[in-house]
């Protein structure tokens, strides 16, 4: 059955924007900001529930970027300089690897609001092992192979901890695999993801975005996860002969980088086209990437539209 959910960091409310700025100028306290974030988490959960999304996220308002919860908590890793985040006018702090990474299984639980998600079918979002390794600066003597294995071990520990905490769905995000990887990296990325997900009982997904997944689609659909995501604003499927038999594809049809709220019919049409093009078992409607590139109000409108499109898809009985 088609379903829908969010795939990344949600934009902050104007209140969180105001207080996080004020905190840096010492005009607000950590407590003020924490209260505003908790309120934003309640709001975004409500929006998703009202929209009828199938898995719920807490909005990741505590995440400064995809890697920061790990950079701040994993021994052997710290947040480094500011670097452009792919082809966006936004930036991330490149993680710096200073030694063997020590899995703790405690990094993400520090930044996920478990209380707000209690009783819900919730999902967690992590970087893939390849994305973590590829987007970090290796300032250690570890070889690239060791770094990737370390990243897989760190993420496996986090995934196991999330599973124990009641998470129903774990998404590994990987823009690097489609935007930066060489052909020979794809197999290594697959093996690292296999190591990170081995034995997990929750549903798992690999979501790619910001660049064309078409050239590696044949390999992607064989990755050891239940679902594979494609950014349809970046991908060209012309000439792709991959078959996603037995898999669910995540159709990145709601544009997280543009404010125009899409038509329901167009979303449904794009999702079905992707499903049929790849011969997938099922399709999920998702944003193509994090929606943090949008203002809050626009992201809320797009989330509601996502829910409406999922309803339309189900009503169509397809």
């Amino acid at each position, binding site marked *: 059955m088609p379903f829908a959910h969010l795939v990344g960091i949600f934009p902050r409310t104007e209140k969180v924007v105001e207080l996080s*700025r004020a905190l840096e100028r010492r005009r607000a306290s950590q407590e003020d900001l924490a209260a505003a974030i908790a309120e934003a988490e309640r709001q975004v959960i409500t929006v998703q529930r009202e929209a009828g999304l199938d898995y719920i996220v807490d909005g990741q308002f505590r995440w400064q970027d995809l890697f920061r919860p790990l950079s701040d908590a994993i021994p052997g890793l710290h947040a480094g300089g500011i670097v452009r985040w792919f082809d966006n006018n936004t930036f991330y702090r490149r993680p710096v690897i200073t030694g063997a990474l020590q899995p703790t299984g405690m990094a993400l639980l520090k930044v996920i609001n478990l209380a707000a998600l209690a009783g819900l079918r919730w999902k967690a979002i992590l970087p893939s092992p390849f994305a973590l390794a590829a987007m970090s600066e290796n300032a250690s003597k570890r070889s690239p192979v060791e770094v990737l294995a370390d990243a897989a071990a760190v993420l496996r520990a986090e995934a196991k901890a999330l599973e124990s905490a009641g998470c129903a769905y774990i998404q590994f995000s990987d823009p690097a695999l489609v935007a930066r990887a060489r052909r020979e990296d794809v197999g290594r990325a697959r093996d690292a993801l296999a190591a990170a997900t081995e034995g997990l009982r929750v549903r798992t997904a690999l979501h790619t975005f910001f660049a064309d997944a078409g050239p590696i689609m044949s390999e992607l659909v064989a990755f050891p996860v239940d679902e594979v995501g494609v950014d349809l604003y970046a991908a060209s499927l012309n000439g792709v002969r991959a078959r996603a038999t037995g898999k669910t594809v995540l159709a990145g049809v709601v544009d997280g980088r543009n404010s125009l709220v899409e038509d329901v019919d167009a979303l449904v049409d794009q999702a079905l086209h992707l499903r049929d093009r790849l011969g997938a078992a099922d399709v999920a409607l998702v944003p193509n990437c994090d929606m943090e590139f949008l203002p809050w109000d626009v992201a809320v409108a797009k989330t509601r539209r996502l829910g409406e499109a999922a309803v339309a898809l189900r009503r169509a009985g397809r």
Partner: protein
Amino acid sequence: MKLFPTQEIGSLAKPAWLVKTTRGQRPSDADLREIDRWAERLGIEGTDELKALLASEHPDKERVRDWAALFAIRLQEVAGLDAVYDGEARRVEMYEYAARRIAGFHFYGHVRSFDNRYYRKAAVIDRVRLTEPFHVDELRYVKSVARKPVKIPITGPYTLAEWSFNEYYLKTVDPSVRDLRTRAHTAKRAFTLDLAREVLHPTLKALEAAGADWIQIDEPAATTKPDEVPILVEAFNEAVRDIKAKLSIHICYSDYRLLYPEMLKMRVDHLAFEFKNTGDFNIVHLFRDQGDPRELGLGVLDVHSDVLETPGEIKDKLLDAARVLGAEKIWANPDCGLRTRTWDVAFAKLQNLVEGAQLAREELAREGLTREA
């Protein structure tokens, strides 16, 4: 023209007395002492009028901005630069200032840049239209007080489009085009070309009519999406159609390899690029290998560091580039605007820039090198 002329790229930090006055706050005694310190250093007289303005119940903000522009111009002149402007003293920043003067844009709310930093990003919700050419009064003021040649910077059409959400033009794409990537590309081109034709071109014409001899078009987003470099070039050429003033393009923090060979079609006289930040001065070979005949503004000052580049280091970089491209093509400049540095640091960096260029001239004369590479 002497060899290795020097230029600033755009913005300088805004003095605290300007920032506070525009926010409706009263400058502190320390802020007023800064006026005295810099007036003495830059040989600016008559600042009692400025202080009286700042002390008044409702200061004339335009007149305060005039003063801020004057200080910035004199800072560059006293440092010894060969081309100057006002440090963008009147502009909020390079995107929002322009977007707010173009009909068709709508600002929704804040978008995160990184960490707890945010910016306001506009959406184009209707066909863009120039309400009134901007920067014209600003240019007239600069021309009225500057003692050196003036170069005016203005944000380019591609960057304005790339940093905006695109709603209106996406709706105009033929609905039969199903591929979302193709739809976005088509809409981006239409948006950028409209900005070039309907906004930038009339503005550049107005600036030229107001006496602009040299216009620098800032396109920091130029290489963000490499497959859109043809749009960048096409829009630039549309914007500068019939413009007779000297034309620069400033692009920073970019991989310049991505611009070529398309860049050779751009009707521009001068490339002002950043080199110090990356340290990759060898990339000057790219311009020679591509047969690019334009002047090159060599970024030799890191605008994100307080460390002062020495005149000797600057001289070496200029001479290295001259040996590849020919000395007559080389200008010396910071990587980008110096707005993140204090005036003390910016002034010292610019003084070293001027001294480094002078050392390069002297060494070239001593060595008796020809001006041709």
